[in-house]
């Protein structure tokens, strides 16, 4: 089946972990994931600057690996991202910031991507809290 996920929770919330597990298991089962849309505090997933301890599960890195393996479309809402300091090189230039932090495996885009995912997928599953 064609699935999409909407993630509204920050990486430190267990809801974000559930979303990742859901995605991973769905892919292993042979479902396809059309898009994962990160919104609200979920956009914090887009940061490439997280540094996890050796003994800790690295959720950001786990998504990166899943993206590599399945060419996932990971999209963070650009408006929600700008507000929370999740920016790519283009936005860094536009807002005259010396740095950016969006991971290469992520993309910033508008809410149209959420709407498109909602319409195109057979199921949309939201994770928040």
């Amino acid at each position, binding site marked *: *089946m064609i*699935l999409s996920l909407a993630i*509204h*929770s920050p990486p430190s919330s*267990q*809801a974000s972990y*559930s979303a990742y*597990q*859901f995605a*991973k*298991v*769905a892919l292993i*089962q042979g*479902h396809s994931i059309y898009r994962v849309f990160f919104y609200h505090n979920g956009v914090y997933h887009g940061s490439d600057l997280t540094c996890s301890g050796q003994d800790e599960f690295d959720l950001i890195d786990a998504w990166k690996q899943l993206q590599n393996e399945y060419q996932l479309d990971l999209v963070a809402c650009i408006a929600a991202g700008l507000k929370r300091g999740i920016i790519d090189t283009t936005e860094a230039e536009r807002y005259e910031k010396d740095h950016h932090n969006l991971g290469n495996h992520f993309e910033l885009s508008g809410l149209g991507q959420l709407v498109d995912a909602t319409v195109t997928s*057979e*199921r*949309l*599953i*939201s*994770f*928040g*809290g």
Partner: protein
Amino acid sequence: MKHSILHTVNQSPFSNNTLLQCLNTYTDGDGILFLENGAYAALLSQPASHLLENKTCYVIEVDLHARGLLEQELNADIQLINYETFVQLSTEYDVVQSWY
């Protein structure tokens, strides 16, 4: 036109009324899946336990396990499931509504 809904609930029923709101919209053919702090809803002691009778309920087993709940008195009407079944249920029900 009537679709079946898989409701997911991730809040503790001891501290807020998310589950009660969900139950208000439940109709026959729906299912409720408890995950994360929603796992506390599987305790027999939780205030809305009696409202789960005759409803189709699931709980993610690792969420019970992580919280030390497997040793506690659980509501026997709730089915313990894994993430594989969570994914499967999402495809079997027509729509997923997340209560968070």
